């Protein structure tokens, strides 16, 4: 009852304050729109393809420069080794790369001579976009067959790998920005509580029969409502911007909800440790901005040195980005993300317990 009255009051204070509301929803939405707009680039069917020439014969060179380079649908880049090409593939700079194996020239030559030949190409591609990969396979196949003048189908050693889909940038960035919005819940949570603490509202309520737990629940409930509203608004916004949501919305929501709880908990901890908004605010940004970067809101954390990845993985956000990308884009189920999921549950529970303890302590004087 008391909790609900406090929650109602806190909600009114938030939604009647245009600044607070604008910050909560507007800030991450602006980010989302910006990223969406920057990377929306109308997808002309130009497939970036890497080529690694292990044959080093005039024929393999001719295949690259004469045959492949002339296909307008392909944007060919040559690589010295497969590792570099793999990195670019994972980062989404390439849709596929082809390895021209040793003996390719010889086999093509044999075919031209009318001898029995086994022409092989090794192609590694991102299978998550079936449209792109199928089109690529057939294009490469056609080009090679024309080049080698063969009637029989060419053997392409297809080597599909599964990397995060890169249908549009929004697909990749969508979950990241949603989590970014939930990271901003840290300063919001802390501010909501510290403002009341600083202005004496908490003290005023402490002269009434309100118990410390009533406060914590009153604030948390209000922030949970805000978090849910945020999650829904961002999911809809990401969907409107063209994010292809494949997986279970409920599971994604649950992951995001747990992430929101973690943020509220962190906010409570900061609020308990600070006396004024001026103390809490910078501390919150010091926590949330580096976490946004390190957890992969804007780019893949695979690019980071391992010690930074280890650091990021100690916090829930990298896990929730990983898990929500998995669910939303790749459509995986709970079993595939069970570790991340359990990590989130554990973290949310732990930070709430710590938050409640610290808050109670800060109330005692």
């Amino acid at each position, binding site marked *: 009852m008391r909790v609900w*009255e*406090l929650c109602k009051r806190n909600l009114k204070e938030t939604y*009647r304050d245009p600044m607070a509301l604008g910050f909560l929803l507007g800030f991450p939405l602006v980010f989302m729109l910006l990223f969406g707009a920057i990377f929306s680039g109308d997808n002309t069917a130009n497939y970036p393809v890497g080529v690694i020439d292990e044959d080093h014969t005039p024929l393999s060179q001719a295949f690259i420069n004469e045959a492949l380079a002339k296909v307008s649908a392909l944007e060919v880049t040559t690589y010295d080794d497969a590792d570099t090409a793999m990195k670019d593939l994972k980062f989404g700079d390439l849709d596929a790369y082809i390895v021209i194996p040793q003996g390719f020239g010889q086999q093509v030559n044999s075919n031209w001579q009318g001898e029995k030949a086994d022409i092989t190409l090794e192609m590694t591609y991102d299978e998550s976009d079936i449209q792109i990969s199928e089109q690529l396979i057939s294009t490469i196949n056609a080009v090679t067959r024309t080049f080698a003048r063969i009637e029989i189908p060419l053997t392409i050693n297809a080597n599909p790998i599964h990397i995060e889909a890169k249908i549009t940038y929004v697909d990749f960035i969508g979950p990241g920005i949603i989590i970014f919005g939930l990271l901003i819940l840290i300063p919001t949570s802390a501010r909501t509580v510290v403002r009341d603490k600083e202005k004496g509202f908490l*003290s005023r309520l*402490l*002269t009434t*029969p309100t118990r410390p737990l009533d406060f914590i629940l009153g604030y948390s409930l209000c922030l949970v409502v805000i978090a849910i509203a945020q999650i829904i608004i961002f999911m809809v916004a990401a969907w409107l911007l063209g994010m292809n949501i494949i997986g279970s919305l409920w599971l994604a929501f649950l992951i995001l909800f747990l992430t929101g709880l973690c943020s509220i908990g962190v906010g409570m901890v900061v609020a308990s440790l600070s006396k004024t908004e001026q103390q809490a605010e910078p501390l919150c940004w010091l926590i949330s901005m580096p976490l946004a970067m390190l957890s992969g809101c804007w780019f893949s954390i695979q690019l980071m040195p391992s010690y930074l990845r280890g650091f990021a993985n100690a916090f829930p956000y990298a896990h929730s980005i990983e898990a929500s990308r998995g669910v939303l884009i790749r459509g995986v189920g709970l079993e595939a993300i069970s570790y991340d999921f359990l990590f989130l549950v554990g973290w949310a529970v732990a930070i709430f317990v710590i938050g409640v303890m610290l808050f109670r302590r800060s109330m005692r*004087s």
Partner: protein
Amino acid sequence: MTPHNIKKAGAGDDFAIQTFNLTRKFNSLVAVDDIDLNIKRGELFALLGPNGAGKTTTINMLCCLLKPTSGTAQVLGYDIQKQPFKIKETIGVSPQETVISEHLNSQENLALIGKIHGIDSTELKTRTQELLVTLGLESRAKDQVRKFSGGMKRRLNIAMALIHNPRVLFLDEPSLGLDPQARRAIWEYIIKLKREKTILLTTHYMDEADFLADRIGIMDEGKIVALGTSTKLKTDMVERQTMIIQAQSFTQKVINEMRSRYEEVEVTEDRMAISDKKLVFQEIVDLLHTSGVTVSSAYMKEPTLDDVFLRITGKELRE
């Protein structure tokens, strides 16, 4: 059992607030120093003192916001450390800072406190209406309070301490920072509450304490340095009387004459202030008259609480 309980059994019916060697230290600073207060039921008691005297710290301990370093206190017979929630159910507190929920309207602000105290909605409605009318906030009942003037916010601040009809009311500097008109309005309302509730009020305005309080405790550096009714404090503590005389002019001869008779004589052009332990009005007027001074006005200056404070602490009571 404990000595406090024995005291309670004897005096609980008479006293709403009692403190026993109540002390609060902040590190090395002794904010409240060994205070023993007995405030009767239905009494309006004012703690008067400069900023930093320990008034708010005292109130904060009495409403269970702050734990005493030593000593204790009882409110309506409940111990502030052992039964804080019993106390919180029966008190109303209007803090020194205006503490209201800025984006809520005044009805919502009052409803929040009312519902926390578990008042049912019908009673809440009547009480809200009553308070808003008495405090002149009715016409703006639905406006968010951030748009209110300082005086209106202050009145709402007090209304929030009253919505649940508490038996004991703590008013911490109720008219702080208000213009004379708004102060007057708040004073009139506080006067109406007298007898009905026990009120502990803190102020650093002597006229406020003088006007409102049944008894005044003068506080300085954590201690109650004087206690009593306003009249008693003034007559007991001020041994000196002052008379002010207005005249066309005072000759040097007259001034010297007066200086030889009275302890302290100050002259500024047409105004003479005479102070001494005992002054007889008629005697001075006659004396001036025979010396050829045309007195246009003369009056005995009543001692103020400021004089009392100055007398006891050697300091002015001003901010």
